[in-house]
């Protein structure tokens, strides 16, 4: 067999340059020697501009997310694993089993090929772990100063099992609110990685694929799960407000019940942030029938990603859609929608 390219990609000290996006041999080489090599599946190896697979009759779910994180590598993950988890989780939040992923890369001229390789390897591992191969993709290269290293938009499809009916508009007063574990880890790990904020923690991102946890939950109480949401951007507070708004209900949560690491708490105190608004990438919020809450909690706690799961409150009737919280101190307050992005405060 003849070798495919005169010299192989310089993964040690090369950079992405404009020719990698030009549709020619350089691009074909990038696709072959990085993407196809690591994502490694038959559909991708077909080199078609789309992937074709059989589906049974049923309910299909599709979700897409762009990933634009800085820094690209952070404690507990990188943009590659995150891009898989972010979309697998959105698919899983319908109760679906994720089947396949598509990935669109927007590379900035100058990205070290070594970084790209690290990201692709991490992405491949995450997709493999999630059982959802990356079967089609796309690569674009933008000029230096018109991107930020790499952006990855992933799209996932999945199949919702029979008897499962989960949607953000299905919360009803009396139902229980559960969260799968400690909140704020991802956001704090990312902020600690930013150059301009000089603090250091041992917190790692919780970035993880939740489809396995969801499968256990669905197995334990398929009909009782009403809403699932991963509290990513805007954190727990935003996820609860979204669900309250979609369902036209209120929520009442108990601050003391919300799992949170002490270092996350401390980092938020330092920056003047409220951990309820800090992003998570491996947690879910579940709203379920009250009668099934304990069963579901037990099922969650059996799963490695739900070990610290907790019932944190209940759905209440409220035409205003307020999310209320009993504070650990003994008072109460509203947990409102965030105003834009959370920024570090000095006062």
């Amino acid at each position, binding site marked *: 067999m003849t070798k495919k390219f005169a010299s192989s990609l310089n993964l040690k000290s090369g950079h992405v340059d404009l020719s990698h996006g030009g549709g020619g041999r350089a691009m074909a080489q990038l696709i072959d020697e990085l993407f196809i090599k690591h994502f490694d599946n038959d559909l991708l190896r077909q080199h078609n501009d789309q992937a074709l697979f059989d589906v049974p009759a049923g309910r299909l779910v599709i979700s897409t997310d762009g990933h634009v994180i800085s820094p690209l590598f952070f404690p507990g993950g990188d943009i590659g694993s995150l891009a898989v988890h972010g979309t697998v989780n959105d698919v899983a939040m319908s109760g679906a089993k994720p089947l396949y992923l598509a990935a669109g890369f927007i590379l900035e001229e100058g990205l070290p090929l070594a970084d790209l390789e690290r990201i692709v390897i991490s992405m491949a591992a995450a997709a493999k772990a999630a059982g959802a191969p990356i079967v089609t993709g796309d690569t674009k290269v933008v000029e230096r100063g018109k991107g930020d290293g790499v952006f990855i938009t992933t799209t996932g499809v999945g199949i919702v099992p029979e008897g499962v009916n989960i949607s953000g508009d299905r919360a009803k007063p009396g139902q229980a609110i559960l969260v799968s574990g400690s909140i704020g880890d991802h956001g704090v790990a990312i902020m600690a990685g930013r150059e301009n904020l*000089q603090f250091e923690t041992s917190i790692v991102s919780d970035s993880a694929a939740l489809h396995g946890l969801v499968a256990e939950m669905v197995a334990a109480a398929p009909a009782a799960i009403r809403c699932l949401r991963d509290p990513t951007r805007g954190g727990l507070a935003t996820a609860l407000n979204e669900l309250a708004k979609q369902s036209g209900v209120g929520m009442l949560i108990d601050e003391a019940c919300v799992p949170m690491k002490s270092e996350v708490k401390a980092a938020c105190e330092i920056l003047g942030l409220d951990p309820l608004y800090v992003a998570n990438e491996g947690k879910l919020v579940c709203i379920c029938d009250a009668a099934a809450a304990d069963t579901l909690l037990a099922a969650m706690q059996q799963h490695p990603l739900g070990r610290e799961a907790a019932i944190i409150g209940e759905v209440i009737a409220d035409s205003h859609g307020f999310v209320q919280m009993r504070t650990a101190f003994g008072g109460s307050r509203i947990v409102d929608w965030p105003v834009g992005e959370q920024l570090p405060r000095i006062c």
Partner: protein
Amino acid sequence: MCLALPAQILQIHPDDTGMATVSVDGVKVEVSLALVDDVQVGDYVLVHVGYALNKIDEDEAIKTLALFAEAGLTAAP
């Protein structure tokens, strides 16, 4: 206003930048000691916008906590 937090001094940098590493429950921050005198490793300082503002007075903290307890005692159960 004036978000400030008690943090423990872990290390005073040996160079003459007047910077120190402090910790709040394991979270480490770099702060300037330009506004304080006579602080040492182990001390708690009040940190605001990256500067140590003051040393925390442990005895006074204990006294204040005692005040709370005392108020509780005077309150009928």
